[in-house]
């Protein structure tokens, strides 16, 4: 009996196969999300006992009026804008170069990938040292004496640089995979069609790489929207000088673990969730639009 019609039995059968993953998803994603929604709406509650005595929008109202939260949103956006485009473009550039380097590509690939697999604490320690005002390597390189980690004007930039450097290797790897996926013959044909090196990149490599670019960008956006470890480690458990590196996730952490403001923490978490959802949705639409050619039923 080929292709049995979907019946109750076969549906249950399929469900049984899906169950483990479904249970995990519900347990570790849906349930916490619902709990967070409940917590964010609780205006009077005991976090430890879980008893809620009053519900309302007060937590969201408090966020709306909290200058620290505004700062956190602003910093998160600035930070993401600082890291993501630069990281994606740099990674693409390096990947294109490595792709042309047949011999030592693996070596460089490993070199670039190392920061990604090194613990954030170690990375932050090293960068804390590089960013030192007096004898720091960064100041030595660009002939300045900026107090990177103590000057609120520069500390976000310091964080951006660190995260940029740390994320580069992974993005390069993804780009290399994407480039590998592109058939060389398209570039050959383009060359025969009289395209210059730049035209080949712009009219062939780049559009064929769009799915990869979007994937990497979305991934980078989400990752960087949730930046926390690097802040925590680089500024030794603070949000930088004058809160200059207060990000959304750090705000959440601070409200939850330090200030015991569980409702506010949950509400800010939901805002973060909403923002990430929005970005993913926008990226998805964009992806849909730019990769029509991938689908059979194009247009």
């Amino acid at each position, binding site marked *: 009996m080929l292709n049995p019609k979907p019946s109750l039995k076969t549906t249950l059968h399929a469900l049984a196969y899906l169950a483990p993953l479904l249970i995990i998803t519900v347990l570790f994603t849906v349930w916490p999300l619902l709990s967070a929604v409940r917590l964010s709406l609780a205006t*009077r509650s*005991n*976090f*430890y*006992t*879980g008893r809620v005595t009053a519900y309302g929008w007060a937590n969201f109202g408090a966020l709306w009026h909290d200058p*620290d939260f505004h700062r956190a949103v602003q910093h998160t956006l600035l930070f993401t804008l600082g890291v993501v485009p630069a990281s994606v473009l740099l990674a693409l550039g390096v990947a294109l170069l490595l792709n042309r380097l047949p011999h030592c590509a693996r070596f460089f690939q490993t070199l670039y990938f190392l920061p990604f697999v090194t613990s954030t604490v170690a990375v932050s320690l090293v960068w*804390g040292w590089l960013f030192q005002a007096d004898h720091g390597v960064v100041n030595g390189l660009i002939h300045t004496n900026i*107090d990177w*980690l*103590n*000057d*609120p004007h520069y500390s976000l930039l310091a964080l951006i640089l660190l995260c940029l450097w740390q994320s580069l290797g992974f993005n390069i790897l993804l780009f290399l995979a994407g480039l590998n996926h592109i058939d060389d013959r398209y570039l050959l044909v383009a060359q025969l069609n009289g395209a210059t090196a730049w035209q080949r990149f712009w009219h062939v490599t780049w559009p064929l790489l769009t799915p990869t670019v979007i994937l990497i960008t979305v991934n980078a956006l989400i990752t960087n929207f949730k930046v926390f470890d690097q802040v925590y480690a*680089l*500024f*030794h*458990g*603070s949000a930088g*000088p*004058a*809160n*200059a590196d207060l990000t959304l996730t750090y705000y959440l952490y*601070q409200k*939850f*673990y*330090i*200030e*015991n*403001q569980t409702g506010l923490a949950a509400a800010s978490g939901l805002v973060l969730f909403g923002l990430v959802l929005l970005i993913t949705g926008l990226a998805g639409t964009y992806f849909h639009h730019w990769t029509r050619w991938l689908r059979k039923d194009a247009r």
Partner: protein
Amino acid sequence: MPSLRRLTQCFLLLTGILCLSACGHPAASSQAAHRTTITFWHGMTADHQAALTQLVNRFNRSQTRYRVVPVSQGNFGTLQQKITVAAKSDTLPTIAQTTYTNVPNYVQGHLVVPLDAYLGKRPFQDVVPVFRQSISYRGKAYAFPFSKSARILFYNRDLLKQQNVALPATWAALHQDGKRLKSQHITALALDQSFLTELNDLTYQAGTPLITRGPRANLNTKQTRAATHVLWDMLQDHTATTAGNAGYGSTQFFAGKTLFYSGSSAAIPVMQASAPKGFHWGTTVEPRYHGRQGTSVSGNDIVLFKSASPAQRRGAAAFLHFLLQKKQTIQWAEKTGYLPLTTSACQDPHYQRYLARHPNARAAVRSLDFGFQDRAFQGYPQYFTAINQSLDRLTTTQTSPEQALPQLQQRVNTILRENRGA
């Protein structure tokens, strides 16, 4: 496949060892089963952890009913997070190290039980008065003082002699010296990242603490502004510096161009270990302000969780009682650099001899006479975050106390109001 065989051999060997060890001490394990286990989460590491383990071992040997199992959570930050998570999932230990300022929150969450019922009032009578201030919340003893330290002034002996500077009796004198030394490129005072403790001291000395009964915040009073200016002015004219991202001022102090460092006495062992060769330093009490002395005492305490069984609670009390005994508290102080917990221990000839041998430890003990602690209240962690953020703005941006303090007062008022409602 030689590796597979090796693996099998290892496995057999391990199984054998486990069987042997399991059969080897039947008496010991059955005895342990009789004992009530008291788990003790703490945030101590390295030498401090070793000293604690020693005390615990001695306690465990001293009697047959209870057994304390210390569990280090790495540091105080993770310890705090672990407690929050464990409270939610009903996996709290019997006792844990925490600061007494968390007690109001734990009481509200029905997480902790008062110690009085198990420990009685008597053991607390000998506790150093300043530590006693923080034990009680709403008339009941919740926080048992444990790893306590005082803010003291470290000084660079050689530089002091070379510049012919006397130990500063007052903050004004310190500032004056600083102005004089600036031409020599010498900084008078190194502070930690935040100068909250020093500000706390100053307002206390002025007789107008930041938080008074109520609780009421006095953050924008004339006195607080004046006290803030003492420190802020020094930062402005560079007679004082904050540590910034380095965290502790000791780094700057050890660089040799700084006369004083205002820091915690808990740092003494670390500073002893990390001082550069040939660097001579001493300690003294914090300067006066408005003619008065006053030093804030900080550190960690121990709380007993409600989830513990009656037997565990009794066991915990026995252990805390044990810690308060002269022999133990003196050993704890000597090994860790924390302060002895009882007056009798402070006066004990044995400990006095220790102080004679370790003059650097004296300043903190002396400070106990005029020490004080913040009062704990619902919302303290929020208050603490808010005031630290304001002070951070004062040190890292062009904000003046006149701009920052009114905002802070407002914010803290909100915090206090919200928590009163809760």
